[in-house]
């Protein structure tokens, strides 16, 4: 401690934040090259991330729709033994459950001969069915249209429908035949799609009797998440006699495939996003570092005028924040619009928002190290004139 105490008392400056924030905006504006490059990076990153992941999500959706079409969203109830048939009324009861898209009940398969107006009779296999959502066509339904095979529905009692492909193959287009034995008239064609496309190999005879005994029920749910809740409720709806004599098959393999596709796409998306962000961070770090090296005397002057190392760090970081915010805002909107235009689907707004926030954080983080280096650089070496 020195002996004579000076009377000059030096108080700490007030160090106002608003003044520093305003100064950082000035830094961003005057450092045009660095700010411009940071803004370009901030523009490109969300476009790339939102664009690429948006397209991937669309591609994933297409694959999942194909898997769902095969039957990932279906539950099959099979009567396990002869004589333990499921009553047709179960179809109506299951159809009432939440999450159920449609329900088809199939009776036993029986062999018949299709007698066309011309040519030899053709052996065909027929199903009695109730509830099948198929597209009907023919003289009675000239326009075609979705309908259900049901008593009182498009298929009147005692009539039958041939698949459109089979009708064409056996030469029944425009004129129809008779099923023997029984003399059931074929009054039109049907088209079944997705999980029901296998029905196209058969003649369908609408179920007309509540007492129709079913051997198989196929249930389609709105979303794979409904598979388990709906399947769990089915035993209570098939009648006490059948409840213990049915097997309920869920498309576990397809569900696993579905999850695998989602996981794989998500993993690839994560890798891609991380790669894009890492490259952006590295580029931003190089650009900002180069900018601070070029501004060494500027930092030296600020130090001489009383700026602390912390204030200089804040100036560089905030000076990066402003162009990053501007570029990211534009890039996020463009990326979102690109996905919407390209695939006709706008991702949830939270996704581009999250990408935008992440981009800004990455670019600001990239400025931290150059800012710290610039702030701690020896001012003596840069401001003295040799």
């Amino acid at each position: 401690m020195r002996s004579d105490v000076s009377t000059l008392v030096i108080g700490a400056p007030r160090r106002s934040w608003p003044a520093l924030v305003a100064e950082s905006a000035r830094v961003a504006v005057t450092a045009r090259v660095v700010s411009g490059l940071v803004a370009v990076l901030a523009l490109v990153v969300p476009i790339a991330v939102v664009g690429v992941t948006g397209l991937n999500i669309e591609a994933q959706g297409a694959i999942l729709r194909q898997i769902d079409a095969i039957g990932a969203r279906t539950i099959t109830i099979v009567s396990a033994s002869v004589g333990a048939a499921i009553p047709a009324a179960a179809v109506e009861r299951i159809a009432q459950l939440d999450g159920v898209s449609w329900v088809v009940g199939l009776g036993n398969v029986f062999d018949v001969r299709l007698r066309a107006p011309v040519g030899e009779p053709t052996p065909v296999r027929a199903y009695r069915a109730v509830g099948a959502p198929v597209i009907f066509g023919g003289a009675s339904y000239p326009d075609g249209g979705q309908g259900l095979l049901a008593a009182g529905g498009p298929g009147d009692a005692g009539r039958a429908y041939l698949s459109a492909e089979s009708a064409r193959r056996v030469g029944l287009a425009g004129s129809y035949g008779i099923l023997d034995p029984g003399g059931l008239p074929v009054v039109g064609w049907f088209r079944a799609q997705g999980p029901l496309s296998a029905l196209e190999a058969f003649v369908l005879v609408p179920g007309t009797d509540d007492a129709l005994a079913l051997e198989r029920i196929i249930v389609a749910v709105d979303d794979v998440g409904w598979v388990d809740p709906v399947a769990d409720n089915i035993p209570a709806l098939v009648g006490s006699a059948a409840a213990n004599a049915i097997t309920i098959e869920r498309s576990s393999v397809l569900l696993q495939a579905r999850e695998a596709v989602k996981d794989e796409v998500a993993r690839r998306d994560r890798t891609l996003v991380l790669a894009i962000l890492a490259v952006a961070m590295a580029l931003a770090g190089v650009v900002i570092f180069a900018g601070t090296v070029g501004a060494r005397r500027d930092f030296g002057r600020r130090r001489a005028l009383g700026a602390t190392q912390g204030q200089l760090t804040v100036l560089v970081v905030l000076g990066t924040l402003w162009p990053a915010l501007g570029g990211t805002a534009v890039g996020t909107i463009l990326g979102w619009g690109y996905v919407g235009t390209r695939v006709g689907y706008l991702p949830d707004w939270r996704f581009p928002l999250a990408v935008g926030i992440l981009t800004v954080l990455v670019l600001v983080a990239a400025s931290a190290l150059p800012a710290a280096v610039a702030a701690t650089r020896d001012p003596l070496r840069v401001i003295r004139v040799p």
Partner: protein
Amino acid sequence: MIANVRPLIEAAAITFGYSREQPVLNGWSGSVAGGEIVAIVGPSGSGKSTLLYILGTLVRPWSGTLWIGDHDVARVGDRGRSDVRSAAIGFVFQDALLDPRRSVFDNVVEGAVYRGDSRAEAGVQARALLERFGVDVESSRRATDLSGGQAQRIALARALLDSPPIVLADEPTGNLDHINAKLVETALFEHARSGAAIVMATHDEVLAARCDRTFRLS
């Protein structure tokens, strides 16, 4: 406000260098009182600028004590030294060291940003100083394409903003013509008469002879 003429700067046994093997300053001691104007002279490489910037708290000496007012700045960190620099020290550099991207006015008031002072209050002082030093360029004009004299007068206004009790000048007249050199010199001497401590590193033996004292480095 400075109440008496006891040393505003008091250094003892200051050692510093750019390599451990060859210190530039080896046990230097000295003091500067308020109202005193002191020249640091010596050949190139003798450590004039280095000593000036140590006194200005821009670098911390390897060893020794350095009191600036009531602060022992050799023992405090960057924040403490920056506080002292911001509150008590004005710098005049040989090449003015203005920011060419700022206006003349903004260059003068820049220090207020780091002190947290009101820009409006600083602006009143800045205009008065620019007028006093006869800066005949628009204060809103960018500080580019200025003559050496104009730049140094602006830098002088920046250094004297808020009347710092200590002003450190590194070859303040080195690049100036006679008229501008005289103006800068006069302004520094006037500031010393108001009670401030002025330390200037210079090669100009005539200017050094006019100072109250001289620190001679070899």
